């Protein structure tokens, strides 16, 4: 457990449900990560990315019936790191080139999320 740490990592949470986003924020902060912003929709997510330096983003695939794909595509083409959170069936929303990205099932297991984020940060961008 002590090996896992997100110290100094700046994270953007894109999740439409406040309760889930709030819990994710606490979870990440519990591992010393810094949640620079939480966004419930694409518009606010893009705005947050423009305003804050972000090392890695956590993306809920289905944002209130809107797909997160445009944002993921933008991050992907810029070579920025992100991890998907998904419910069953959300995978259908993803185009083929995004299906091999790291993805965690909801409800998310804290340690898995932290490990996925650490792995992403350890790999070359």
């Amino acid at each position: 457990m002590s090996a896992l740490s997100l110290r100094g990592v700046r994270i953007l949470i894109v999740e439409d449900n406040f309760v889930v986003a709030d819990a994710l924020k606490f979870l990440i902060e519990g591992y010393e990560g810094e949640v620079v912003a939480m966004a419930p929709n694409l518009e606010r997510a893009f705005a947050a990315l423009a305003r804050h330096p972000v090392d890695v983003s956590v993306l809920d695939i289905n944002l209130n019936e809107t797909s997160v794909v445009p944002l993921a595509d933008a991050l992907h083409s810029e070579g920025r790191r992100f991890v998907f959170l998904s419910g069953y069936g959300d995978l259908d929303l993803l185009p083929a080139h995004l299906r091999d990205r790291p993805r965690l099932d909801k409800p998310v297991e804290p340690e898995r999320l932290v490990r996925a984020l650490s792995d992403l940060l350890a790999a070359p961008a």
Partner: protein
Amino acid sequence: MVPPRKAPTLSTSGTGTPRGGPPDLIDEANRLLLDRIRLGLWLVLAGVAAVFVGELALNHGTRPWISIYQAANWVIGALALAVLHTPARRQFNLAVAFVTMLVTVAATGAVGVAALDATTPVVLMVGLALTSSMLVPCGPGWQLGVVLWVIAVAIWTVASIVPSPRLFWLQYVGTIVPTLAGTVVIAYALQRQRQALDDAERERRARERGLRDANRRLEEEIDQHRRTEETLRFAMRELDHRVKNTLATVQSVADQTLRGAQSLEDFSHAFRGRIQAMARIHSALAGRRWEGLQLGELIELVVGPYRNDRDSVSIDGEGAFLSSDLVRVLGMALHELATNAAKYGALSTKAGRLAISSQVEASDPPRLRICWTERDGPPIGAPTQRGFGMRLIEEALAYEAGGRVGLQFARQGVRSEIEIPLRTGSG
């Protein structure tokens, strides 16, 4: 007269049994064809026999070749009649009939050559008349017309050649009357056959139409079934999505409730209250097919359980229809206000009063204002820390619905002003 048209299944083109028709219809057509052929042959035999007898009576022994030709013709006709008995052998029946007719024509031609008298054209005409009446595939009226025309020519020929009236009458009665009678019978039979075929055709069309209708209905049903299945599959996916989201929410609520809990009992109480509120909201939304709820219904649903008596909570103001997403997040905020009121505020004593008023501001988009005012409760102070409950009140609505929430812990009671844009998404 029946207009000329091709009889549907009496074609002599030799294509065999018509394909596609119902079997009973084909049997009927073949049987009628055989009847026609046999009747024609009987008439040929009668005609040939009459002329043969006349020849023997009038010119006994003087022209043996004529009698031989006629006898041969008669025998071949009789043989043909003997082998024509199976309606299903349509090709065979037609071929035998044609050959017999050709033999008749050839024999009468030979008789004419040998006799050098009117017998030849008469019998030849009779043969032609029978051939046409029996096998020409057009309407019975036309066949009758052809036969009458041939007979008229025959009478004219006989009248102009035959020297004695006696011979004329013998030939007339012996050949033309049976021919005419046979033709009338054939025409009648054809008419009946045509009628039967027409009826059968009509019935077949009606049956076909019925089948097509049934087929179409079946296809529609299958289509309906497929659509239902698709809808169901979609609904299952949607349901699974909701369940996963709900589980994620429940886990988060548990995490966050645990973070703020002073004791296990405290946790249990708060957690249970939140899950109960979520469950009530879920049930109400499910009952409305996830379209949404009226504001009044939502308030009653969430705040109602904390009412101490009839007067402790007053609800008035304008109603508004809230989308299911808004219901979920506003419901949780109202639940937090209500549990707080029940624990520390106006709903924790009998004297305390809670007033909830609402109004819809006609801006674009319209804005819903809810005023939550507690009074006459125990004196309260501001909370020492901002827990999950307070975040649910102050931040969740702003986050998910673009609303603004003011929360004041005044001495006389909690006061909260909630303002939410309606009909728009979050943002």
